[in-house]
């Protein structure tokens, strides 16, 4: 898998250079203010973990980076230039690939078509060039195999896969197409232990290949395994922003709302 990421990573990445810089970013959905005054920097070769309660605004934050919703306040810079993405296409063209929490797959389309959707391989560069179906099938298949996912038939509509299998396809796709920045919104939520492990390895590999990674999760263990930088959101505001060196797993767990309580609970439920 590492090979796939390294193959597709942009050549000009240098560890530590800021890829995405957000300053004072805010977002309102109609009357609902989901995010306000958030600063965030994604550096090349680093994993930035975004943590927080349900409804804290994590997904909203990354949807701004990936161009799905434009921000309503503040500035977003990519590679030092200010941007205001009108569509996910623009973000993708900057080498930013995203795994959305609500997936973004087209249920009735085949697995391999979903994998390559929006970035199809073609036999030639002229307009109307035919698709290279054989190559796409093969690549999709082998990328999924690398994650340990065996779909019964790569031609089956993706809607007939289990929730976790679909999640894996979305992750494999983002990993395959992410050249500079990889954004993962709760990628391991629906996954089994094995697949979760694979995803964590991918995350580390992407970091090692020099990509900037944004990793959203509710699992502090997962976060601490790969994160270099931790940001906690609460009701749309940033309440913690620390480097890995400044925080321990126990602190992080405790800082996440209710982390303390879970530990207590474990004791309480103990039989």
């Amino acid at each position, binding site marked *: *898998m*590492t*090979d796939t990421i390294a193959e597709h990573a942009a050549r000009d990445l240098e*560890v530590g250079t800021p890829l995405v810089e957000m300053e004072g970013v805010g977002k309102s959905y109609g009357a609902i203010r989901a995010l306000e005054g958030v600063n965030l920097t994604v550096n090349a*070769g*680093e*994993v930035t973990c975004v943590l927080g309660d349900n409804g804290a605004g994590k997904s909203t934050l990354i949807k701004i980076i*990936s161009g*799905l919703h434009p921000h309503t306040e503040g500035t977003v810079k990519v590679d030092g230039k200010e941007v205001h993405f009108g*569509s*996910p*296409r623009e973000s*993708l*063209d900057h080498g930013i690939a*995203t795994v*959305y929490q609500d*997936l*973004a*797959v*087209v*249920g*009735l*389309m085949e697995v391999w*078509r979903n994998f*390559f*959707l*929006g*970035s*199809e391989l*073609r036999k030639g560069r002229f307009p*109307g*060039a*035919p*698709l290279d*179906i054989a190559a796409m099938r093969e690549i999709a298949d082998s990328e999924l*195999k*690398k*994650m*340990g996912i*065996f779909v*019964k*038939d*790569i*031609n089956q509509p993706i809607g007939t896969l289990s929730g976790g299998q679909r999640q894996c396809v979305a992750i494999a*796709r983002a990993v395959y197409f992410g050249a500079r920045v990889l954004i993962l919104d709760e990628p391991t939520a629906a996954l089994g232990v*094995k697949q979760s492990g*694979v995803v964590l*390895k991918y995350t*580390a590999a992407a*970091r*090692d290949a020099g990509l900037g990674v944004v990793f959203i999760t509710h699992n502090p263990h997962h976060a601490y395994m790969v994160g*270099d*930088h931790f940001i906690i959101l609460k009701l749309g505001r940033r309440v913690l922003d620390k*480097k*890995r*060196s400044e925080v321990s797993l126990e602190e992080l767990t405790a800082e996440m709302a209710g982390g303390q309580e879970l530990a207590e609970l474990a004791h309480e439920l103990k039989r």
Partner: protein
Amino acid sequence: MSSPVATPPSPPSTPSTGAEPVRVQRSLGARILSRPEVGSLAAAIAIFVFFFAIAPPFRTAEALSTVLYSASTIGIVALGVALLMIGGEFDLSSGVQVTTAALASSMISYQFSLNAWVGVLVSLIIALAIGFLNGWLLIKTKLPSFLITLSTFFMLQGINLGVTKLLTGAVATENISDLDGFASAKAIFASDVDLGFVNVKVSVFWWILFTLVATWILLRTKTGNWIFAVGGNQDSARAVGVPVARVKIGLFMGVAFCAWFLGQHLLFNFSTVQAGLGVGNELIYIVAAVVGGALLTGGYGSAIGAAIGAFIFGMTTQGIVYAGWDPNWFKTFLGVMLLLAVLLNLYVKNSASRRK
């Protein structure tokens, strides 16, 4: 701390150590059976056999030619409509767009005494502009296409009538058969092709050609992939970078192109056009697409299916006449046939999915 730490290299492989499940390769037969058009094909064959059995005049080559012609005049526009429906939208203005294109072509060349081909081309531009407008309004307003195209439907109906009346002083255009270029345009759009044993309208061949091109686009190009995606899940398609607006506008322009083509056929077949024609046909095109297996909700369907749907509709319409049934009950027969066709379609599809 955050620089990647070098660990002792381990083999980069992940494939699980346990027995991996056997990848199922579906047989060719199963794959054919899972195509959207297979059910409607079965229905088409059943209806064909039915009329063949009960209506002796139906058995002649001439009858087949008439049926094919009837299917082609539905099928050309139904094709564009089917693609649009796969892309998740409706077009209620397709029927009157045919008339608009025919009227525009006729009036432009007649009023300015130009070569018929000038009218043909200018009317193509007008038709594409209408299609573009439909799509553009859809994208800008985010209203359902039903509403947008219903407005266009009403507006075009009025414009067809109003402009024709304004320019010609009547509600039908002048006969343009004496214009330069009429003969050559008629040869392209509305001639008879003699196959030796039977005459077939040239529109039948165009219909088949368009169907093949559309099939190729749908299954073998990027655009086709995008059409399925925007129809299947517009938000997801947008999220992975499909240019949803461009695809949808393109699809509306595709319908407009098909409508334009049929409009030219109409014009060069009859030499004049009545301003009030075409109303109601939009539903027939949708029916053809749906009978051919396209989902009303988008994301599923095929061009060949739409062609088969048009064939079923044409065959039923004419078959009832060949069978000599009481014309008062015509619509009832049509309804029953339609229902039976879609039920058979469904039955075949279900049994297909139950097979390996």
